[in-house]
């Protein structure tokens, strides 16, 4: 049970003079129940890649296997796939359209053909999961603040209870507190329900703190696919791709260069703190 990409290549404007290869023979598997971070520079192909996962873009060549079935099979139901693989786009608040918050979140579950009771249940559940105050459910989504709109939009996808939840830069344009709240909420839901989360980002800190595994994309190819600790060991290579390791990685490497016998594989502030305290305690 997993989402597997086999030799996926995608070309924009294929066959014309403007042809651009956005994805170049991608092979990757996203196992069930993992929290995966996809990082890459702007234009590296990460957004294009995740749009393949629920069939919004069809690959020029290659196949995608979801739970043992090829999604490009003519008999395969894309609609069914899209209820299984949920996708939150960049700036998802731009897709709000209903007259009330409740109706907007209920749009997805209604399209799934659920009865009114289940729709209501899922809608309130999703709004609660994203920490949206229930008393504002009958307000127009256009009257909310940016952060609240973002929550409503994410709830709109979560209400469909997808087994795989993809989020494309869900924290872009939010303040640090809003960012942490959204990411914590995702992690919490992930731990509670065991869903697969694929988080696209170019912020190393976000990904390092939350993901079990990191996939690094550069120029349409996968460069690394490993745990955060191992990926950030290559921080020099990441810099060459226009990315950077978390600041903690730099800090620990500098400490080591300065002669402190620390291990450099800490990726979060918490881990770095423990490592340094351990060292000081030993001294």
């Amino acid at each position, binding site marked *: 049970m997993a989402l597997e990409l086999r030799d996926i290549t995608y070309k*924009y*404007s294929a066959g014309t003079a403007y042809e651009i290869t956005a994805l170049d023979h991608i092979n990757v598997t996203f196992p069930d129940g993992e929290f995966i971070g996809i990082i890459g520079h702007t234009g590296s192909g990460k957004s294009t890649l995740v*749009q393949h996962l*629920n069939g*919004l873009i069809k690959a020029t060549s290659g196949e995608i296997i979801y739970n043992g079935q090829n999604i490009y099979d003519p008999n395969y139901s894309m*609609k069914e796939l*899209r*209820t299984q693989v*949920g*996708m939150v*786009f960049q700036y*998802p608040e*731009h*897709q*709000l*359209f209903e007259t009330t918050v409740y109706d907007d979140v209920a*749009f*997805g579950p209604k*399209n*799934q053909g659920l009865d009114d009771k289940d729709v209501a249940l899922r809608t309130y559940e999703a709004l609660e999961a994203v920490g949206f105050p229930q008393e504002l459910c009958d307000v127009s989504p*256009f009257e909310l603040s940016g952060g609240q709109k973002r929550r409503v939009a994410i709830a*709109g*996808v979560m209400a*469909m209870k997808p087994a795989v939840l993809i989020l494309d830069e869900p924290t872009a344009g939010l303040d640090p507190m809003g960012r942490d709240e959204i990411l914590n909420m995702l992690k919490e839901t992930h731990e509670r329900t065991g869903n697969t989360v694929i988080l696209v980002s170019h912020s190393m800190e976000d990904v390092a703190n939350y993901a079990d595994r990191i996939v690094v994309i550069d120029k349409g190819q996968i460069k690394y696919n490993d745990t955060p600790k191992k990926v950030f060991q290559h921080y020099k290579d990441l810099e060459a791709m226009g990315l950077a390791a978390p600041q903690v990685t730099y800090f620990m490497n500098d400490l080591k260069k300065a002669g402190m016998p620390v291990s450099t594989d800490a990726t979060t502030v918490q881990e770095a703190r423990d490592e340094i305290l351990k060292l000081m305690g030993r001294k």
Partner: protein
Amino acid sequence: MLRDITLGQYYPADSLLHKLDPRVKLFGTMIYIISLFLFDNLWGILWITLSLVAVIRMSKVPFSFMIRGLRSIVILLLVAGVFNLFLTPGEKLASFWILTITKEGVKNATLMTIRMVYLIIGTSIMTLTTTPNQLTDGLEKSLHGLTKLNVPVHEIAMMMSIALRFIPILIEETDKIMKAQMARGADFESGNIFQKAKNMVPLLVPLFVSAFRRAYDLAQAMEARCYHGGEGRTKMKPLQYVSRDRNAYLLILAFFVIVIVLKVVF
């Protein structure tokens, strides 16, 4: 899916026509259109065809791009041709059932078809060799005199260029919102016309909201840079005639004189 729509149909190339001042091209196109409706004999057709071929060769734009516009008027051409052919009274050539073909009908139908085909080809030469921005610039400058009659020429030109600028952005936005709603199970394809219209709501509402947001942002950005309308505003690339533009004007006039002479003499 919507990415493949090309807008404005500017074809970049390095030709004399591309370099020409847009005002000259606007004037030339106007004269050309007038000429199309002036000629009524074989010599006129020959002269205009000859000139058209010369201009096409000069533009360095593939001919297939010019006849692309014809596809959309094929039906119009057929209808106009058939009506002219059968419904023009005059000297009888052939007749069957209730339909009669007359000599005048044949002539009218031929002239009408040639005029329409040439009209499309001629005007697409202008849009193929001129960017939309150059075109609005040229229009603004040519119509500048109308400001004395309280016509807001600059504002109209500004609106035109902003509208053109926003079309690709809105297409991209439509594409994005469509995908986002499809990911939530929206269906834009199936159903009858009423269901389809209703299904468009999740696409149209966000699109309008985003258009207003962008318009508001743009207005603020313009104001922040002290935009205050056309009065006293200078251009980064002011339109200035050079010798080739003057020569082009002379050629256009010569072309027109010959059209008139051919009409009067024959």
